[in-house]
C-alpha cells in the first residue's frame, strides 16, 4: 500500500496525517486525567513542528540551491477515471504557512492550558484533525483533494467554537459554519467545471493543479470560475462585505480556538487566492481586480475605524485582523513580485502578532473574567510582564519598524505602488495611521491608568513559554527579514511568471492547452 509506505518514512503525507494518527490513542485515553492528555498533546504538537521543520530544512538544503524548490510526494491515483489523485506538494509559497501552522499549534495548547476546563479529550482530537485539515489544504496539489481538506477543517473548528465558546457560541459557530460552507460550494462547482472543461480540451480527466495551469479558458468563463473561487476565499480572508462572521467567531471562541482561527485559518483564503485564484484565471477583467483592491482598501479603513470604537478587547483585535488581511489581499492583487512576497510575509507576521494578542486577551480573561474595556485598566502595575508583551505585540501589529509588521506592510505598499496603483498605496498607508490609533487606544484602556483591583499573579510558566517564542520571532523577522523571505522568493517569481505568460497569451474562444515553459519565457 503506497500510502502506508509514505506514512512510514519522512514525507509530506507523514506531516499531514501524523496528527490524525496521534488522535487515535487519545480516543482510548481516560477522560478524567486531563493533565496527562494536555502533556500528550503538547508533546505531539511539538513533535509535529520538529518533524515539519526537519523535513523542510531537509528539502531546502537538499541540493544546496538557495531557494525552495517544488517538491512533491509520489501521487497515488484515487479516482483514475476522473484523474483525481492524492497529490501533495510543497513549494516556497506553502512552506512558510506550513511552518507557521505547526509552530502555532503547541502555543495554542499552552494558551488553552488552564482556560479549557471540560472535555479535553474531544478538544485534543478536534485540534489534531483541524491540523491535518489545514496542513492538507496547504499541501494539496489536486483541486478535489484541496476541497476535501478545505471542508475537513470546518467541522473541528465548528466544534471548538460551539463547545468551549462564550455565551453566544452556538450562534457564532453556526454562522461561521454556514458562511464558510456557503462560500465553498460555488468553489466546488468551479472545480468540477474546470475538470470537465479540461477533459474536453485535453481529452483526459485531470484535477492536477499543474496540468490545469496549462489550460486556457475563454475570458467570460474564466470570470465566472474566478468568482466561484473568489467567493470562497473572500469569505475566508475575510474581505470587506463578508467579514461579519469573524468578530462573532473570535469573541465566542476559546483562546486556543481564536488563536488558530486568526493565525492560520484566515491565511487559507489568501493562500487560496495566491495558489488558485490568480494563476488559474489570468484573463479576468481589469474591473474585477480593481473591485477586489477597492474592497480590501475599504476593509483596511473600515475595519480600523470600527475597531477604534469597539467596547470588547477581543472584538477590537478581530477587526484588526480584518484590516491586516486587507493589506494582504491588497498585496496579492497588485500582482508584483515585491507585493506578493510582502503579502506572504504579512500572512506569517499577522499570525504571530495577532496570535500573541489573542493569547494575551485569553490570559487577561482568565484573571479578570472580562474582555470589556470599561472593566479593565492599569495592568502595568500588577502584571508588568503581561503588559510588556501586550505593548510589544501591539506595536508589532501596528507596524512599528524594527518589528515584523512593518516589513510586510512596507513591501506590500511598495509593491502596490510599483504595480501602478499609486492612489491605493496612499489610502493603504492611511491604514497604518489608523492601526496605531486603535491599538494605542487598546493599550490606553488596558495597560495604562490607575489599578485598584486585587493582586493578580503575573504570567505563569506555561504562559511565558507560549508568548516568548512569538516575541522572539517577531523581533527576528523585524531585524533580519531577508532570511525569512529568501526561500519562498523563487516560487513566487515562478507563479507570477506563469501568470504573466498566461495573461499575455491571446484570448481564446474555447478551452485550449498551451505549453508553459517558464525558463524559455523572456523576463
Amino acid at each position, binding site marked *: 500500500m503506497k500510502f502506508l509506505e509514505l506514512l512510514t518514512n519522512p514525507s509530506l503525507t507523514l506531516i499531514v496525517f501524523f496528527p490524525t494518527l496521534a488522535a487515535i490513542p487519545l480516543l482510548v485515553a481516560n477522560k478524567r486525567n486531563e493533565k496527562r492528555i494536555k502533556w500528550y498533546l503538547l508533546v505531539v504538537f511539538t513533535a509535529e513542528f520538529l518533524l515539519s521543520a526537519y523535513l523542510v530544512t531537509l528539502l531546502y538544503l537538499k541540493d544546496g540551491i538557495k531557494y525552495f524548490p517544488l517538491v512533491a510526494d509520489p501521487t497515488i491515483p484515487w479516482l483514475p477515471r476522473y484523474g483525481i489523485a492524492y497529490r501533495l506538494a510543497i513549494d516556497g509559497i506553502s512552506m512558510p504557512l506550513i511552518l507557521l501552522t505547526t509552530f502555532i499549534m503547541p502555543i495554542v495548547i499552552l494558551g488553552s492550558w488552564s482556560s479549557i476546563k471540560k472535555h479535553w479529550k474531544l478538544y485534543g482530537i478536534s485540534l489534531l484533525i483541524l491540523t491535518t485539515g489545514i496542513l492538507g489544504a496547504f499541501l494539496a496539489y489536486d483541486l478535489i483533494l484541496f476541497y476535501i481538506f478545505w471542508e475537513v477543517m470546518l467541522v473541528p473548528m465548528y466544534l471548538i467554537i460551539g463547545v468551549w465558546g462564550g455565551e453566544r457560541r452556538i450562534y457564532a459557530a453556526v454562522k461561521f459554519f454556514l458562511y464558510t460552507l456557503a462560500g465553498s460550494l460555488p468553489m466546488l462547482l468551479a472545480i468540477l467545471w474546470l475538470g470537465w472543461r479540461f477533459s474536453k480540451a485535453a481529452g483526459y480527466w485531470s484535477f492536477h493543479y499543474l496540468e490545469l495551469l496549462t489550460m486556457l479558458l475563454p475570458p467570460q468563463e474564466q470570470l465566472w470560475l474566478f468568482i466561484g473561487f473568489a467567493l470562497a476565499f473572500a469569505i475566508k480572508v475575510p474581505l470587506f462585505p463578508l467579514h461579519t462572521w469573524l468578530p462573532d467567531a473570535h469573541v465566542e471562541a476559546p483562546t486556543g480556538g481564536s488563536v488558530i482561527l486568526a493565525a492560520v485559518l484566515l491565511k487559507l483564503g489568501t493562500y487560496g487566492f495566491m495558489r488558485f485564484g490568480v494563476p488559474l484565471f489570468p484573463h479576468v477583467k481589469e474591473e474585477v481586480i480593481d473591485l477586489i483592491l477597492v474592497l480590501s482598501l475599504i476593509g483596511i479603513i473600515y475595519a480600523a475605524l470600527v475597531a477604534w470604537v469597539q467596547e470588547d478587547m477581543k472584538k477590537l483585535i478581530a477587526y484588526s485582523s480584518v484590516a491586516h488581511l486587507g493589506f494582504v489581499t491588497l498585496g496579492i492583487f497588485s500582482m508584483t513580485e515585491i507585493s506578493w512576497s510582502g503579502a506572504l510575509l504579512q500572512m506569517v507576521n499577522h499570525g504571530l502578532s495577532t496570535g500573541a494578542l489573542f493569547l494575551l486577551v485569553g490570559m487577561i480573561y482568565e484573571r479578570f473574567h472580562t474582555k470589556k474595556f470599561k472593566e479593565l485598566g492599569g495592568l502595568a502595575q500588577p502584571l508588568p510582564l503581561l503588559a510588556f508583551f501586550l505593548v510589544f505585540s501591539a506595536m508589532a501589529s501596528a507596524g512599528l519598524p524594527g518589528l515584523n509588521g512593518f516589513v510586510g506592510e512596507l513591501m506590500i505598499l511598495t509593491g502596490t*505602488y510599483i504595480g501602478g496603483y499609486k492612489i491605493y498605496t496612499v489610502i493603504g498607508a492611511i491604514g497604518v495611521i489608523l492601526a496605531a490609533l486603535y491599538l494605542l487606544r487598546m493599550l490606553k484602556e488596558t495597560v495604562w491608568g490607575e489599578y485598584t483591583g486585587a493582586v493578580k499573579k503575573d504570567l505563569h510558566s506555561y504562559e511565558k513559554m507560549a508568548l516568548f517564542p512569538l516575541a522572539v520571532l517577531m523581533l527576528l523577522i523585524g531585524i533580519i527579514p531577508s532570511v525569512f523571505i529568501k526561500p519562498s522568493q523563487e516560487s513566487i517569481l515562478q507563479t507570477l511568471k506563469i501568470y504573466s505568460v498566461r495573461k499575455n497569451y491571446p484570448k481564446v474562444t474555447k478551452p485550449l492547452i498551451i505549453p508553459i515553459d517558464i525558463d524559455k519565457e523572456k523576463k
Partner: protein
Amino acid sequence: MTSLIAIVLLPFLGAVVNGILSFSNSKRAVTFTALATTGGSLVIALYTIWRYLTELSPQPIEYVLYKWLEKPLEIQISFLLDPLSAIMLFVVTFVGFFIHLYSTGYMSDDEGYGRYFAYLNLFMGMMLLLILGSNLLVTFIGWEGVGLCSYLLIGFYYKQDEPPRASMKAFVVNRIGDFAFLIAIFISFAHFATLEYREILNAIATNQQLQDTVYIFGLTLPALLALLLFIAATGKSAQLPLYVWLPDAMAGPTPVSALIHAATMVTAGVYLLTRTNLLFQLSPNILKLVTLISVATAFMAASIAIAQRDIKKVLAYSTVSQLGYMFLAAGVGAFVVSIFHLFTHAFFKALLFLGSGSVIHAMEGEQDIYKMGGLKQHLPHTYITFLIGTLAIAGFPPLAGFFSKDAILAYTYDHSKAIYFIGLITAGLTSFYMFRMFILTFHGEFRGTEEQRKHLHESPPSMTLPLWILAIGSAFVGFIGKIPFTHYDLFGKILSPVIVKLEEKAVHHDVLHEVLLITLSVVAALLGLVAAKVLYSQGPTGDERLKSIITAPLYTLLKGKYFVDELYTFVIVTPLRTTANILWRFVDQLIIDGTLHLAAGIVQLISALGSFTTTGNLRNYMLYFVIGIILLIAYTVG
C-alpha cells in the same frame, strides 16, 4: 568604521540590560549600566568626530552592517559619517549623556527607575540610528523608534490619567508625519530602486529631465519628495499643523522633556531637511511654503508662551517657536545657519529644561510659576545657570543664542523684509516670556505653601553639574559659528560639503548693514527684558496689566492656546469617532448581518408554510394520497 556600530549598539545594549534589571529594583546596577553605555558611546563618538573632522578633506564614510532585504527590495542597514551627522552625533551623545547623569538624581526616588533608564537608553539608540542612517529606511526605523520611546517616556507616570492620553496623542500625531515619510520611501524606491541618500540625490542631480517634468499634482518629483519629507518633519519637529502634541508631552518626566522635546528628537526634522537639502533647493515653491509655516509657527508659539502659567508649558512653546526659527533658516536657504541654531538651541534649551527640573524637584512637583517666586536665595546654582540660559535664548550678544538667531534674521532680511519683521517681533516676544517666567520664579517673594518653603533645597551635585556644563556650553558655543563682521565661520566650513550650492548667493553684505541688524535684534531683546521687568516685578499681577495692554479677548485667545486642541478634536476626532460608530452599528450589524438574518427568516417562513399541511388527521392524508394517484394516472394515461 566599527566605532559607528559601537556607538549605536551600546545604548541598545543598555536598554536591554536595564529592561531586565527593571524587574529587580537594584538602582545602583541600573545607574551604572545607563551611564556606562551612554558615556562609552559619548567617548567613542568624540574620538571618531575628532579624528574625522581633523582630516584634510573629510569624505563621507559609509559602512554597511548587513543586507536587510535582498531579492525583491534591495535595502541594507548601513551607516554614514559626514560633517552633518558628525555634528548631530556630537549634540545627541553630549547632551544625552549629561541628561542621563542629571536624571540619575532627578528620578532617584521613583520606583520605575529601571524602566525609565531602559526607555531612555532605547531612545538614545534609536536617535543615533536616525542621524547615522545612510538610507531612508534606517532613518525611518530611528524615526518611528524615537516616536515609540517618546510615547513610552511621556506615558511614564502611567498611574495618573493625563500622561497616557498625552503619550497616545504624541504617537498618533507623529504617526501622521511618518505616513508622509512612508510615501516618500515608496516613491523613491519606485523611481530609483534604492533608498540610499547618496544615490537618490545623485540620480536627481544628474537627471535634468527629472527636475523639470511635472510628476503629479503639479509638482516635480524632487518637489513631491521635498513636500513629503517636510510634512514628516512638521510631524516630528512640531511645526504648525502637527505641533499640538509637544505641549502635552510635558506630562512626562522633565529630563525626558529636556532630552527628547528640546535637544534631540524634535531636531530630527531639521536634520532631515538639511540631509536632503538638494530636493528643497530644486523646488522653490516648497521652500516658500516652509518659510511661511515656520515663521507662522514661531510667532504663534511665542505669543502663546507669554500667557502660560506652567513653567514647562512655557519652555515647550518656546521650543516650538525656536524650531520655527530653524525651519525659517532652512526655508530661506541658509541650511548651515539652521543647523547652527539647532546646535546652540540644544544647549540652552536643555539647560533651561533641566533648570526647571531642579526647580520642580525642589518644589516637590509644583509646576505653576504663580505658586513660586523668590527662589533666588534657595537655589543659587539653578538661579545662575537659569539666568545664563534665559539670556542665551533671548539673544543677548555674548551668548550662543544671539549668534545663531541673528544669523537667521540676517538671511531672512535678504530674503524678504516682511518675514524679517515678524521674526524680529518673535525675538522680542521670546525674550519677554523668558524673562517673565524668570522673574516670576526666581524674583519677588515666595508664594508657595509653608511646608514647601521648609522643604526648599538646592539639587544634589549630580543635577547641578550638568547644569553648569550646559551653561558653559550655551555661553561659549556661539563662537563656533559665523561671527559678524569677520569671515570666521568654523561651523559653515565644516558643514559646507553637505550643503549643495546651486548658484552663488550674495553671502557677504557690507558692515553697515550688519551693524543695523545686530542693533535691531539686541534692541528687541532688551525691550522684552524691560517689559517683563516692568510688568512682573511685583509678581503674577503683571498678567492683568498685560491683559489690559493687549485687550482681554486677545489675552484669553493666547491663554487658551488659540483653542487649537479643541479645534482639532471638533474637526477631526469627533467626526471620525461618529463615522466609526455609524460604520460599526449601522453598516456592520444592520446591513450585512441584517441581510443574513433576513435570509434565515425567509427560510423559516417557508418551512412554517410546509408544516401547515401535516394536520395529523389520517383522512386528510388519504385524500392527498388519492388525489396524488389521480394526478399520476391522469398524467401517464390521460
